[in-house]
């Protein structure tokens, strides 16, 4: 039995350099299998939208080829590609009503009786009542659903989504994420979704490619990216990571023993993406929620074999489900620790001396030659 692969998207050596010499996308190989929900994640200007536009045919690649299934579409204009796009600002036709917006693609392909299909599609996105309204009479969320309906009605091989939820408020965005995920499962079309929202990418996609400065930093399932980041950018961009500079000591078998400050940290060799030679440097990473906090007076109760650091609580913020601590440690300022509010220890207040400890299995190692702050979202970026 052969599986249908007509919805595969295969990018080979694709790149884009603009006339002004700016390279938005460096040569890139990427395969999106038929029927998957694939997210391109990155900050603005990382080349994710350019990549998407090259798949749509709205941007001509400088090098490389685009294949849909077995068909080379690199030279096809957008109107000949079996691909549809949901644009960032929806780009609904302001002079046509909702019905005609949705029917646009069908009519262009010479289909005469569109009424039934359009009505069904409007039902699917729950806009049956609005068929005769103009786009500007609808709310942002409704316009977004029209944009999805207008693309999906053509049964494209691949649906491209360019930050489709960016203009919606948080609550509506969460709702639409689930809605899009449901539609994708229902229609089984390959979705390629561009977003800068890491939470959105992780909740919706099967596979996420994290892009930075025109390159794919890492590609994998959301949980894989989160648990095993291979670059500081991915470690910082997806959630929060504590990165501690450490010196490689003597290794024993499957584990590396590292020296950080005065203490020793264990790192499984398999979880270290950097070449670790004795005496060299690596960055030790640990996610804030993997760390447990124990007051320094109870340090004796911590089981053997766990990685430990000492420090002092600099700040604690209670946010209901958990408490987020900022801890100053001799090896690193401002370590983040998230503790679930199950049994709260009243002594863990700012100023208290504490021991941070975690399982070595949750530790990851990164190449120390990278920028330790790459991918950290700064306030300015947030505002932009």
């Amino acid at each position, binding site marked *: 039995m052969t599986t249908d692969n007509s919805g595969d998207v295969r990018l080979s050596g694709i790149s884009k350099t603009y006339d002004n010499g700016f390279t938005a996308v460096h040569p890139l190989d990427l395969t999106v299998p038929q029927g998957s929900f694939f997210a391109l994640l990155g900050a603005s200007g990382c080349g994710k939208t350019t990549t998407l536009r090259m798949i749509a*045919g709205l941007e001509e690649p400088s090098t490389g080829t685009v294949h849909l299934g077995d068909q080379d579409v690199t030279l096809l204009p957008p*109107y000949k590609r079996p691909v*549809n*796009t949901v*644009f960032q600002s929806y780009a609904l*036709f302001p*002079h046509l009503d909702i019905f005609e917006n949705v029917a646009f693609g069908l009519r262009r392909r010479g289909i005469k009786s569109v009424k039934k299909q359009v009505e069904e599609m409007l039902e699917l996105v729950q806009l049956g009542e609005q068929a005769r309204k103009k786009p500007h009479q609808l709310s942002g969320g409704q316009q977004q659903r029209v944009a999805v309906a*207008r693309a999906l009605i053509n049964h494209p091989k691949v649906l491209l989504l360019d930050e489709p939820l960016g203009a919606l408020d948080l609550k509506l965005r969460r709702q639409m994420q689930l809605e899009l995920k449901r539609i994708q499962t229902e229609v089984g079309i390959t979705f390629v979704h561009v977003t800068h929202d890491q939470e959105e990418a992780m909740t919706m996609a099967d596979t996420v490619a994290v892009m930075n400065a025109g390159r794919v930093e890492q590609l994998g399932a959301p949980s894989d990216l989160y648990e095993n980041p291979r670059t500081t950018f991915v470690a910082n961009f997806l959630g929060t990571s504590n990165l501690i500079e450490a010196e490689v000591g003597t290794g024993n078998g499957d584990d590396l023993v590292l020296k950080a400050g005065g203490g020793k940290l264990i790192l499984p060799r398999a979880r270290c993406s950097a070449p670790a030679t004795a005496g060299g440097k690596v960055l030790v990473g640990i996610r804030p929620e993997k760390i447990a906090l124990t007051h320094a007076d109870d340090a004796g109760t911590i089981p053997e074999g766990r990685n430990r650091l000492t420090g002092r609580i600099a700040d604690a913020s209670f946010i209901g489900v958990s408490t987020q601590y900022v801890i100053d440690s001799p090896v690193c300022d401002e370590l983040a620790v998230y503790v679930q509010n199950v049994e709260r220890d009243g002594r863990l207040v700012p100023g208290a001396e504490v021991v941070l400890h975690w399982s070595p299995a949750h530790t990851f190692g990164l190449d120390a030659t990278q920028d330790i702050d790459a991918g950290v979202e700064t306030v300015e970026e947030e505002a932009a």
Partner: protein
Amino acid sequence: MSTLQEAPPPLATAEPAKKSPRGRGRLTPYWLLLPGLLWLVVFFALPMIYQASTSVQTGSLEDGYKVTWHFATYWDALVEYWPQFLRSVLYAAAATVLCLLLGYPLAYLIAFRAGRWRNLIMVLVIAPFFTSFLIRTLAWKTILADSGPVVHALNSLHVLDLTSWIGWTSGDRVLATPLAVVCGLTYNFLPFMILPLYTSLERIDGRLHEAAGDLYAKPSTTFRKVTFPLSMPGVVSGTLLTFIPAAGDYVNAELLGSTDTRMIGNVIQTQFLRILDYPTAAALSFILMAAILLMVTVYIRRSGTEDLV
């Protein structure tokens, strides 16, 4: 009933605002309107009333004119000068169509393709305004001169045979024919077509073109189904700005035409300045205005641009 949970009525906050010393600020819009309103009254409303009264006067230049409510002047003027009215409408319509055909591609180019040349081209479009209307029209006399290269070229290409056959030119001449007048009108009013077209094309979101292409529309279909419909406000205002002044124009017909191409503007001018028959000139002006208003109203209704913006 949970009246207790209702928010207090906003009256409490609205009250002090009314009494605030800044209440005078509500008059500001009227103060701002005043200069324009005065201008309109002095230079539009009063002359109109004066002309209206002139149009129903009788008398002669020697004895003076008196208001006698002689409405027959309107009917007499219409009966005598309807061919010039008809000619004005035809010439203006031809010039408007030509302006649209010439102006649309140029406006499209400036809006979407000109890139960094955009401002330069815009300046070139407006540049003719820096010289006098009369001089520019007289220049066409030279361009279309009987022995000039244009007429020579048209002649050897047998274009003039064709235009003579449909009555636009006569013999080997272009000057003093309807074609010359329509050319002059087209040339003089072209910028009034290009500017509104450019404005409405430039406002079209480029992503709509991409969206149309993404939805299987060929570039030509995208133009027919998206670009052109969205530029309708520009088409309507451009055609109006061309047609209305062209219908009332007399300079082009005077300088480039002959006695056979007289437009209603020429008749009014002659009545007013040479024959000094003020009532007929005033009545003709009002008939022209009424006719244009009627045509414009029908046109706007038909093109349905009200719900485009």
